């Protein structure tokens, strides 16, 4: 019933705090053109387009796929726009994959973007409706208490978050597209940076970026004529749970655990730590690396931080995590999830350049959004199932 699908090409923009050299369409085309070219194709070869983006308020354009139809070569084609909060980039990749897997289209372009410098992300995330009394602003204030709870539950030493920040920023310096290029960052510098929402420090926090990411997904026939290696989509999974409910585990959310259980089952993976060669996971605040390692089953509950501390998640470790620099190095909100998916594909295609994990054959792409409630994930492989 389900047709095989593969990533044929990947493209992304140079992510920056303000891409004032391009319009919104120009930003999207930069990523789309690169993706299509890397697949040896033209926009005219694309059968359908799926656009993903976080809230319209960030750019002040309602339903921007309507404005972007011409720029994306979508006139006369099917066009969808997905919005699942922060996980949207991942959901965009999964929706695009399902159109191919359902046998509806041969080649689908997934494009996710955010040009959040046109407004102010903090403002857009903090608009309080009447009758609500905001206590904190922005995402950091929301997640910091859950990070505190993780540290308490796990007994993790207090410098673990800083280790992740150092690793991800140094990885980012190997990635020419990454917004933050901090090759000389040190543990001391991170620990000395201002505490924003205790226990989260400035250098442990993602930037606000303009950027776009595009992925071309094709069926078996399309993959067979692709000019270079492709990344076969071995499994996809999405799960959601409410923002708040009595008994919700905010540290190790059930939706994340059930999502990855479905994912590993579909992919035939029983020992993730040994079977996954590299993972691109959505870490906007550094402590989420050990938290997600546990949620994803790479470590037992309470032990995720040990993998980080032992440098197992660094390039060269047992499970390199975020060799691209991750969300901590670039965070165009709507695109970040697709960047994780795209970077996982680049790894198994052998196209990750200076941040390539040698011999990577099976990779995980992961995204989450909302109040740790929306999860989307995929497993890609250099070999078909």
């Amino acid at each position: 019933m389900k047709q095989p699908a593969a990533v044929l090409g990947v493209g992304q923009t140079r992510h920056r705090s303000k891409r004032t050299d391009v319009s919104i369409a120009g930003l999207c085309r930069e990523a789309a053109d690169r993706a299509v070219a890397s697949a040896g194709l033209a926009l005219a070869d694309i059968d359908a387009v799926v656009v993903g983006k976080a809230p319209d308020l960030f750019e002040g354009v309602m339903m921007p796929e309507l404005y972007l139809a011409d720029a994306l070569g979508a006139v006369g084609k099917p066009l969808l726009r997905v919005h699942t909060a922060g996980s949207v980039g991942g959901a965009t990749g999964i929706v695009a994959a399902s159109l191919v897997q359902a046998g509806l289209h041969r080649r689908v372009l997934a494009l996710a973007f955010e040009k959040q410098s046109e407004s102010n992300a903090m403002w857009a995330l903090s608009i309080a409706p009447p009758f609500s009394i905001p206590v904190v602003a922005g995402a950091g204030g929301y997640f910091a208490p859950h990070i505190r709870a993780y540290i308490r539950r796990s007994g993790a030493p207090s410098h673990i978050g800083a280790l992740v920040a150092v690793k991800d920023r140094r990885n980012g310096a190997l990635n020419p597209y990454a917004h933050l290029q901090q090759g000389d960052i040190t543990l001391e510098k991170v620990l000395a940076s201002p505490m924003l929402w205790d226990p989260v420090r400035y250098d442990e926090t993602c930037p606000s970026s303009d950027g776009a990411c595009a992925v071309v997904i094709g069926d078996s026939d399309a993959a067979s004529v692709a000019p270079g290696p492709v990344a076969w989509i071995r499994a996809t999974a999405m799960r959601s749970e409410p923002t708040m409910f009595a008994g919700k585990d905010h540290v190790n959310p059930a939706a994340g655990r059930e999502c990855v259980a479905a994912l590993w089952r579909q992919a035939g993976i029983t020992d993730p730590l040994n079977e996954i060669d590299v993972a691109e996971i959505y870490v906007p605040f550094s402590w989420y690396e050990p938290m997600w390692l546990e949620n994803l089953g790479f470590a037992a509950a309470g032990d995720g931080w040990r993998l980080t501390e032992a440098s197992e998640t660094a390039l060269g470790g047992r499970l390199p995590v975020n060799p691209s620099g991750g969300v901590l190095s670039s965070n165009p909100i709507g695109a970040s999830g697709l960047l994780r998916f795209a970077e996982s594909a680049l790894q198994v295609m052998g196209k990750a350049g200076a941040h390539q994990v040698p011999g990577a054959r099976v990779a995980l792409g992961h995204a989450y959004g909302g109040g740790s409630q929306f999860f989307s994930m995929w497993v890609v492989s250099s070999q078909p199932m």
Partner: protein
Amino acid sequence: MSADVAVVGFAQSPCRVREDATTSGVEMLVPIFAEVFRACGLTRRDIGFWCSGSSDYLAGRAFSFVSAVDAIGAVPPAMESHVEMDAAWALYEAWAKVLTGEAEIALAYGFGKSSGAELRRVLALQLDPYLVAPLWPDSVSVAALQARLGLEAGRWTEKDMAEVAARSRAEARSNPDAQVSGSVTAAELLARPYVAEPLRAHDCAPVGDGAAVVIIASAARARELCERPAWISGFAHQVDSGSLGARDLLAVPSAAGAAAAAGAGPVELAELHAPFSHQELLLREALGLGEGVAVNPSGGALCGNPMFAAGLARIGLAARAVMSGRASRALGHATSGPALQQNLVCVLSGEAS
């Protein structure tokens, strides 16, 4: 296209201005979920995939769709997604999911509380952000420009437009969910003043709040859930250029293209998402609907237009006509964007392929 998937249930809330409803949609959704589950003999735990359609800008809040997840009861966690479009496109995403085999039963829902927003102004933000939106051309005025093009090309008259409105209101009398209905002649309507010449009030959909839900199932399950499933024999959508001045506003190539891609063929009944009277005339032509086709027996969007649910409701109503035996082939249409820029067609049949 094989008809492996069928619509097995549909419900919508009565479309009207609701002082009690919020932009999260929960108050409008909880009762119609209960209704459709009862009709199908299902509970929320039977749904393999949920997909919704709604808009932050209609709500005035970022992430406004998130609160709607409360209405689902997503504990244990659910496979769920969302499009920032009319829920007809959420149904399309759900249909694709069922075709992959990842879900056997899927539910699409849409909701919109237009009465809380300055709808005409908000929709101006769908236009080109550099060249058009800064002028704030409201949605009614944009539709009026399209209507006049047709008048002056001899495609229709103001009387033809009024007749669409009069017929719709008469049909809507038998639709308990319609916002506007009644017995009025075209002549009486033409005597009323313009609101945005050449459009009069009756040429425009009323502003109201509402929600809709459709349940689809794969062949194995559909026959257990419904006596006469409405098989999806075709489902396609296309978009036209975003440049209002560059495209021919009297042609709707994306509607014709979607109908062709869906393998539409002759149908007995069509529910068209036409929030303006002249757009029904345009769509009839683009979709090749002959005189014998019953168009908008519900009264259509002209009699009730819950934003982001109206397109889904058209598909639901077309499916209901097939499920009730009123039609053996029916068509549901949805539109998105200014002046019919993007169009979707779903063809429903009483026969599995």
